[in-house]
């Protein structure tokens, strides 16, 4: 019986020792990553072997969490410092180029095939059932399309749509768009209904 207890104690000691070494090693690395000397982390773990037990390492954990880390000062340092810069200290990547592809609305109205293009040369376009008379007017010849019917907004890589309150109505992917909704982003929409005319939205 005594041998078994001694064996169990020995096994526990071995596991405890392995855990202690592992914890000390990891604490060393963690503290180093924060810019502090690694021995401080190892020392904090080894303190658990002493009579003061776990209280002091626990306090040190709280101090480490809320203290100012040297890493933060290095990251905030101006580029060109003598030390190699960390990834966070590098300048941000250049912003993505604006997507200037034109938007296309295509479908079939009572007056024949409709193919409308919005290339962004105008900030707003007006969908109308009448013949287009201005550069920003897009004609959808159909009796159910108002004159004007809706307004389209091109901004950056996004397209907006606002219903102007005609009886024919406007739908975005089947959902009714009312004038009180204001402009809605339809960049991700697939099908727009103006009156009874179905227009497929694409961006070739």
């Amino acid at each position: 019986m005594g041998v078994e207890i001694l064996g169990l104690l020995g096994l526990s000691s071995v596991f405890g020792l392995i855990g202690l070494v592992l914890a000390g090693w990891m604490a060393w690395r963690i503290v180093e990553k924060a810019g502090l000397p690694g021995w401080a982390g190892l020392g904090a773990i080894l303190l658990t072997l002493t009579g003061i037990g776990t209280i002091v390492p626990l306090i040190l954990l709280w101090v480490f969490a809320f203290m100012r880390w040297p890493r933060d000062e290095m990251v905030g340092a101006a580029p060109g410092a003598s030390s190699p810069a960390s990834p966070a200290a590098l300048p941000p990547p250049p912003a993505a180029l604006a997507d200037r592809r034109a938007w296309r609305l295509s479908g079939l109205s009572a007056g024949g095939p409709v193919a409308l293009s919005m290339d962004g040369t105008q900030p707003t376009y007006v969908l109308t059932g009448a013949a287009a008379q201005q550069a920003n007017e897009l004609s959808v010849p159909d009796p159910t399309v108002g004159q004007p019917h809706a307004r389209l907004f091109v901004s950056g890589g996004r397209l907006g749509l606002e219903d102007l309150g005609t009886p024919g109505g406007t739908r975005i992917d089947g959902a009714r768009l009312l004038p009180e909704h204001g402009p809605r982003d339809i960049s991700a929409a697939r099908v727009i209904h103006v009156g009874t005319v179905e227009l497929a939205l694409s961006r070739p």
Partner: protein
Amino acid sequence: MDPVAWLLGLGSLLVFGVIVVHLLAALVLIIPTWRICTRAGFSGALSLFHLVPLIGPFIVMGVLAFSDWPSGEAPSGKR
């Protein structure tokens, strides 16, 4: 009183006490570790591994020690 019921009640109380003490002890570790994880660029929820008895703290420390910190580390030369 039935001794079996008495023992069951005492056992339940002991288990409840152990769970409460474990949660409180874990909380004392979770709060600073949450801050360390977020400062390192990880999710603070990583610190909830402290709720796992015995190996939980080793998992958190292992992640912090052996993976690259998303929000940057001190340069090797300065260590």
